[in-house]
């Protein structure tokens, strides 16, 4: 298998584009073609990523300019994907640049028919209060057989394989710290 680094890949693409221009138009457009090809990501900050969908873990590169995501593409240096992406992976730019993304905390009161925007502080306070109430009301120190179990029976959690490992670790720590045993996620379904 031919090994091609990302830099060489870009160079190779540039040569191909220049060749096309030359043969079709009869004069050399290569400096203009190359400039056009590079302009979009020129000077942009690069970071490497792994796709969030299936478990193949295709490599990706983000280009950021002035704090804005301007390009998201396959990483040719990644040994598994070698720059390739499927339809989902190739659409990931729209996961960030998307008018439908939730941008505010929303709250739905009991029996209400609509969402209300609220602050993080208000929501976290109220959730914490709910957790304490549910936990204190359902906490079981000893089970029916008199054995110590020290668990919270009244709260359950599902999620998530969409979290990073470090988040999964502290999420389970948080839940088990609260005494939860009803902890499940995508791996069960």
């Amino acid at each position: 298998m031919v090994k091609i680094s990302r830099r060489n890949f870009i160079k190779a693409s540039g040569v191909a584009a220049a060749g096309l221009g030359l043969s079709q138009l009869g004069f050399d457009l290569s400096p203009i073609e190359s400039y056009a090809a590079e302009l979009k990501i020129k000077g942009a900050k690069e970071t490497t990523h792994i796709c969030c969908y299936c478990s193949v873990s295709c490599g990706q590169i983000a280009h950021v300019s002035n704090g804005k995501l301007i390009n998201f593409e396959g990483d040719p240096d990644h040994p598994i994907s070698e720059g390739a992406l499927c339809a989902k992976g190739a659409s990931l730019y729209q996961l960030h640049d998307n008018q439908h993304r939730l941008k505010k905390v929303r709250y739905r009161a009991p029996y209400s028919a609509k969402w209300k925007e609220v602050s993080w502080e208000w929501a976290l306070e109220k959730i914490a209060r709910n957790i304490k109430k549910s936990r204190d009301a359902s906490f079981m120190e000893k089970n029916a057989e008199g054995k110590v179990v020290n668990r919270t029976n009244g709260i359950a959690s599902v999620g998530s394989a969409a979290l990073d490992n470090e988040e999964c670790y502290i999420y389970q720590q948080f839940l088990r710290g609260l005494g939860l045993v009803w902890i499940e996620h995508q791996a069960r379904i």
Partner: protein
Amino acid sequence: MTNHYIDFRNADVILNMGSNVCENHPVSYKWIKAAQDRGAVFIHVDPRFTRTSAKADHYVPLRSGTDIAFLGGMIKYILDNDLIQREYVVNYTNASFIVGSKYDFMDGLFSGYDPVKRKYDKSHWAFETDENGIIKKDPTLQNPRCVYQLLKKHYARYDLDVVSQITGTPKENLLKVYQIYGSTGKPDRVGTELYAMGWTQHTVGTQNIRTMAIIQLLLGNMGMAGGGINALRGESNVQGSTDMALLFHIISAYNPTPQAKHKDLATYNGMNTPKTKEPMSANWWQNRPKYMVSYLKSMYGKAATKENDFGYDWHPKLDDGQNCSWLTLFDDMHKGRFTGFFAWGMNPACSGANANKVREGLTKLDWLVNVNLFENETGSFWYGPGMNPKKIKTEVFQLPCAAFMEKEGSLSNSGRWVQWRYKAVDPLGEAKPDGDIMLELYESVRKLYAKEGGKFPEPILNLKMDYATNGKFDAHKVAKEVNGYDLTTGKLVANFTKLKDDGTTSCGNWLYSGSYNEDGNMMARRDRSDPTGIGLYSKWAWCWPLNRRIIYNRASVDLNGNPWDSKRAVIRWDPAAGDGKGGWVGDVPDGGWPPMVNKEKTKLPFIMKPHGVASIFGPGLNEGPFPEHYEPLECPVERNLLSSQRINPAAKVFAGTMDQYLTCDPRYPFVCTTYRVTEHWQTGVLTRWLPWLLEAQPQLFVEMSKELGELKGIKNGDLVEVETARGKVKAVAIVTARWKPFNIAGQTVHQIGIPWHFGWRWPENKKFSRGGDSANLLTPNIGDANTMIPESKAFMANVRKIKSKG
């Protein structure tokens, strides 16, 4: 996965059964193609002809839910024709073990069955031991009570005729697959199997995979480059989230969750740490106490001391034998047993089997916290179809979280590669990284308990949650805690071999120990060198355990430490290495002990198994030590052609008003299965909102054969309704040659299929011009007898036309 994605290229035969690799893991096909280019044979066994089938050298159909019959027939073929890799089977598996006299099998039931409890007493399946407690063996494999002979007897019934009648697969197709795959029993030929939810989402899911594992062991394909059993997992980090124990039955890297009977840490360790009398077994789980104490030190920090049993009492415990898995959780929710619920990065209103029951369950909560990037059918359940907000009490908090490119951290792919990704941009609007939400929420709860007290506040107040830097979640700090520290020096431990059970080390997850040590963040490595030449890329990122890229790799060599196949050596014993003492070269071996010929110092290769060898006979599973064919809970046949047991005798059946099942019922005559398309993912919550993807796949469809279309008067593009005993959905009909009716014991059986990516919330669903609802409104809430994964791949349905294509 035992192996990894690039390793597909090393196989001689690739069997894709139980998944649709080209459509659901598209980029990985390049490594199958690389194998095909080398002359490898690619086989796809699936109820439906897909784009994977189109790329395969052989496509072979089978009816959903009959994989054990299909593979049981392969076991019979391999044994009848003596295609096994004998040296491997005798030395590295339990084929030679003598099974005790209480074991028996008759008419679909193993010995020890209690029909009232629908449970087995597994002591009936124990091995016979000598006066020293060592298992009796017959390396000649002749003893009629040895595993090999019992295996032969068990599968003698799976002949081509009966298998073909059950599966609907023509006999010549069965024979073709058996011949091709059976050829990999030669030491220099290797076969691999790729599966996914097509195998797990059945009442016999675990045993589907076990059947293939038995085949791989008989043929000597485990531990080999181009071999193994490879689960193509469906989520980018479902491997990591499982390792991190976001499941009820395990804590930190596959230690069992403490139960009431484990009254203290010593009892927990005593009852859970496997013991063996086998002299050559490494029995790696004997280290469990070290991992447990180090985990508790990570959970509770300095507050965990020897005097307080390292905080063991603070850790929640299950009742003995309590099952809190998904289906039970939503059954309990439906019974109103929870007041609070987190759906964090999940959309159970669409992903849960029998989704109507899930959605109704949500109405019985006091509060729901839903964390996601987009609005979804779970957070918005209260205004979904059939819901009246005025009657629903549930308080809902919808918290906006960051997308992956808006934060930093690691994730683990199916091949156990743990890779680091960086932050590119800030989250949108007020969205926050999940890690920050967790830390802030914990802090809010902690403050309440610190100020007001409450029930048993110790575990909350003592939780070691010091993972912020400048007030923000710091993934590096967590990754280091997950790796573990030597608490006497404050330095990161090199790996899990340094962990201790005396409280002088901490480690959040022993399997990840070595991922972020004093040499740095190993997960962030980007070195493309591949000195073995077999595509291990050992310096690209990091892989658990200990950066071992192919697990069970000491089974890839013979007793002298020479590779079974020198062209694709994973490891090799080099007598000259280590200043003449000898040493392994290649991948990180499963332990550094010398080869098997050195009986004094060696250890058997399957180090996680108490007896050191792989299990052809598996006495730990709930429905028996050998896989047996049972029909799905809902099936098109009145009886199981192999025995009087129609369904898995150990599967748990729920019996509430929402738990409806109908089998062999004329109202639901067609087998139905669920699947995915390339353009969407899971419930669609991270794909339906992306305009490019929605344009490519805008709405729910149901696929059926041309024969069924004719029978039901349905044409391509018609609007139809698909219905089961539990629910119905509208879908556009795709009438296609990709489905063919099955001949099941002389009867024509039709099967239909439906993707599960859609939901009522988005796209807008007026008059079904776009969108549709979840296919899980149709699926049954019965689970596998071991894992409780729902049987979403085989159930009974009807389909009827609503409107011709307009």
